[in-house]
């Protein structure tokens, strides 16, 4: 079935003929309420947005919805979506010689002008390769001719883009609402002047936050340390992220798509603010989304009104990195409930701070039905919580737990991390002790009228050092260490029958750490892993650790060197030329303070901690004011 078809013709009849053969075909339909389909031939720039995971995950991603509306509300521009087909559909597509298609018009992905990916987590990278392959495109950027669409990528992962530089032509750093439109406008301009992809890439480097890796040369010493990153031609030596200064006037998808099938976040997504300046030292998102910018209550009330009307959802999820920190969170919830609860529309808070204030907020929004609460103390001992700058005392935690169980909650989820820098056996014992204390406080606080038994689930992740954090220089624990620590906790918690203990797959965290702090040389490992059959690595049933190890061996690279080594202060980092606006010196200073267990205050309190983002990017903290 390789007959040449006319450019821009829908593959609908062919795809529809195989849909009866797959599980849950409804996830592949497109055509959701508020989805957009434009007349192909009248367009000047067409973007295919490829989410490197399945539909149910991709449709829960706010960035996709924002960019979808930003592009589609402009004349002449269009964005269509594509997601990872599940293995049954992928096999059928390959068998019938059909390419990856977009959900809106069932168009061949490679016919679009620009192909855009979002990088949400390292373990989706093999999916990027697989999607390009399904689209019928050469995987390596250098093997794609000037007539083939540029492949671009944004999202958090773009802040260490190096492992993907063999495959991606251009990266978008930071917030892309305006940047993407500039890139599309430039595409139209270059095309009209008779230019192609290479001309566009060269000019695109002038746009804030745009990184074109082919204009940079990286050199290594004999051990594999980077000795130089050189910019060629007019490429900027350091690329600063793009940032939206005022969220109130920024575009927001109030005409949001409504999936037919169940997706992970099946509700209205209301972003109340961007950024978090609590300064947890392991947290990458807390750095990359700086500074904190809140929306006004009036903006949020207006957006909610449109969203409820345009979607029909009965739940408004208040989204941000830490919604309880939104300075007007109480009044906002009151306003939203006043207006919408009579129509059966409720409010939900996906992430909670561990304190009594947050429990009171949860009580406000879950008066009748109490679903579970989630707390993330992250570390078990006070010493280690101070090292990571969690700014949370045992008293805070136990008070919050007491308040929650007193008010009738019975199930609690706790998130912890093991393998944090400076962690000792005492810290692990501290974690088990804390969980025991939490359980006994819960038992004491639970009123007699509550019949449901207490259920505490403890989920323990392995620390993965992330670029652009104070812990970026620190190696990950070895797999043997992690295994011992998991074993210790499992045994300590076994006698507690109300506590369910689970931990993340350490092999997955290991590979994640390799790519998190990886360099350009990992491109060949990624390619080899995909060739060997790795894909959908974030899905435990598909993750093939054995194949990953084989890929590293075949490429002659040692994954342990990447994951476990402590990087020297003066060493050049693979992401040295990528800037989040936060000074490298500040990260190092934070690491020094961490070792002494010194806390750094949240800059919202008024004291600048000198991270440098506001000065460098000419932005400021923007807090909502009372009554507005």
């Amino acid at each position, binding site marked *: 079935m390789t007959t040449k078809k006319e450019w821009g013709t829908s593959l609908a009849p062919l795809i529809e003929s195989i849909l*009866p053969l797959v599980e849950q*075909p409804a996830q592949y*339909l*497109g*055509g*959701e*309420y508020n989805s957009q389909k434009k007349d192909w031939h009248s367009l000047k720039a067409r973007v295919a947005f490829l989410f490197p995971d399945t539909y149910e995950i991709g449709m829960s991603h706010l960035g996709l919805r924002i960019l979808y509306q930003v592009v589609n509300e402009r004349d002449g521009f269009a964005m269509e979506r594509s997601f990872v087909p599940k293995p049954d559909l992928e096999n059928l597509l390959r068998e019938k010689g059909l390419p990856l298609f977009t959900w809106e018009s069932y168009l061949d992905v490679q016919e679009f002008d620009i192909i855009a990916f979002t990088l949400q987590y390292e373990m989706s990278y093999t999916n990027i390769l697989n999607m390009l392959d399904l689209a019928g495109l050469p995987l390596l950027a250098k093997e794609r001719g000037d007539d083939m669409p540029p492949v671009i990528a944004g999202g958090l992962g773009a802040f260490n883009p190096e492992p993907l530089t063999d495959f991606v032509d251009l990266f978008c750093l930071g917030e892309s609402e305006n940047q993407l439109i500039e890139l599309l406008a430039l595409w139209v301009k270059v095309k009209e002047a008779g230019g192609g992809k290479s001309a566009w890439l060269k000019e695109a480097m002038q746009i804030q936050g745009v990184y074109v890796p082919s204009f940079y040369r990286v050199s290594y010493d004999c051990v594999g340390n980077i000795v130089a990153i050189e910019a060629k031609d007019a490429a900027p030596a350091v690329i600063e992220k793009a940032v939206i200064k005022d969220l109130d006037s920024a575009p927001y998808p109030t005409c949001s798509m409504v999936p*037919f099938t169940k997706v992970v976040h099946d509700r209205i997504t209301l972003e109340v603010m961007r950024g978090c300046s609590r300064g947890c030292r392991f947290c990458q998102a807390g750095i990359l989304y700086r500074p904190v910018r809140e929306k006004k209550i009036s903006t949020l009330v207006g957006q909610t009104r449109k969203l409820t009307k345009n979607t*029909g959802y009965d739940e408004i999820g208040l989204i941000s990195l830490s919604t309880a920190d939104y300075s007007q969170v109480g009044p906002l919830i009151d306003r939203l409930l006043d207006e919408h609860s009579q129509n059966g529309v409720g409010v939900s808070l996906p992430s909670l701070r561990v304190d009594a204030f947050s429990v009171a907020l949860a009580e406000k929004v879950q008066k009748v039905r109490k679903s579970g609460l989630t707390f993330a103390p992250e570390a078990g001992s006070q010493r280690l919580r101070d090292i990571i700058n969690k700014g949370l005392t045992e008293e805070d935690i136990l008070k919050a737990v007491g308040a929650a169980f007193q008010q009738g909650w019975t199930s609690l989820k706790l998130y912890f991390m093991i393998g944090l820098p400076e962690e000792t056996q005492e810290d692990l014992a501290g974690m088990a002790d804390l969980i025991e204390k939490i359980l006994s406080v819960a038992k004491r606080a639970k009123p007699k009228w509550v019949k449901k038994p207490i259920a505490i689930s403890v989920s323990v992740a392995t620390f993965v050092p992330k670029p652009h954090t104070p812990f970026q220089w620190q190696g990950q624990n070895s797999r043997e260490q992690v295994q011992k620590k998991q074993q210790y906790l499992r045994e300590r918690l076994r006698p507690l029958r109300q506590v369910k203990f689970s931990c993340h797959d350490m092999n997955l965290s290991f590979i994640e750490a390799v790519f998190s702090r990886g360099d350009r040389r990992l491109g060949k490992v990624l390619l080899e892993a995909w060739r060997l059959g790795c894909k959908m690595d974030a899905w435990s049933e598909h993750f093939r650790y054995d194949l990953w190890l084989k890929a590293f061996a075949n490429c002659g690279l040692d994954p342990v060197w990447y994951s476990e080594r402590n990087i020297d202060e003066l060493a050049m980092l693979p992401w040295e030329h990528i800037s989040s606006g936060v000074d490298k010196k500040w990260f190092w200073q934070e690491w020094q303070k961490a070792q002494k267990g010194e806390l750094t205050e949240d800059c919202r309190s008024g004291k600048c901690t000198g991270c440098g983002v506001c000065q460098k990017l000419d932005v400021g903290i923007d807090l909502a004011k009372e009554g507005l």
Partner: protein
Amino acid sequence: MSVIRFSFAIEGRLRFLSHLDLQKMFNMAIQRAALPIAYSQGFNPHPQLALGPAHAVGVASVAEYADMELIKDFSPEGFLKTLQPALPQGIRLLSARALTEKTPALMASINCAVYVVKVNGLEKTILEAKVAELLAQTELLWQRKSPKGIKTVDLRPGIFEMKVLAANSLFLELRIGNTGNIKPDEVIRALNIENLAIEIIERTGLYIRDEQGNKREP
């Protein structure tokens, strides 16, 4: 308080929605349209919308039915005008009427479904011979596979009528509803014709059928 019975078509790609997806889609569309739907009493109130017999995933239709209870009087014309813009492309409202007297529920009364099945082209005479052969049998045992296992069912009593419309098109009148469903694809496959592939199935009617074989629309 009023109950509106309406009919609608499922067109294009939306034929791949499941019955549950369809239910969810209508509930959300009703909210978008701000229709004053009634809710059930109880701890977990749910909207009073009752769809007729499920269409199988992949089956298009020009004859689906649903009942909706509203807390205010609503004209059928006003209802259609309010709901249609809130529906995705591929769900087309056909008609609506207010149920005045007590009417049996759709699920309790509909017992007959009519389908037109498009197959890949064959000799019309061969097809006709096979159909005649099938109809001549008094019993037609069929292994029905489901996630729960294999069950043997007799298809024959549930085939009310079957005829060949053209070399690539068949007409089927089958039993549906509380007394048991006969699926059109099962009947086609029971013809036992090698290389016969179903291209598309469309439900063209749902009826209340009496013992004499007289049909009326719900």
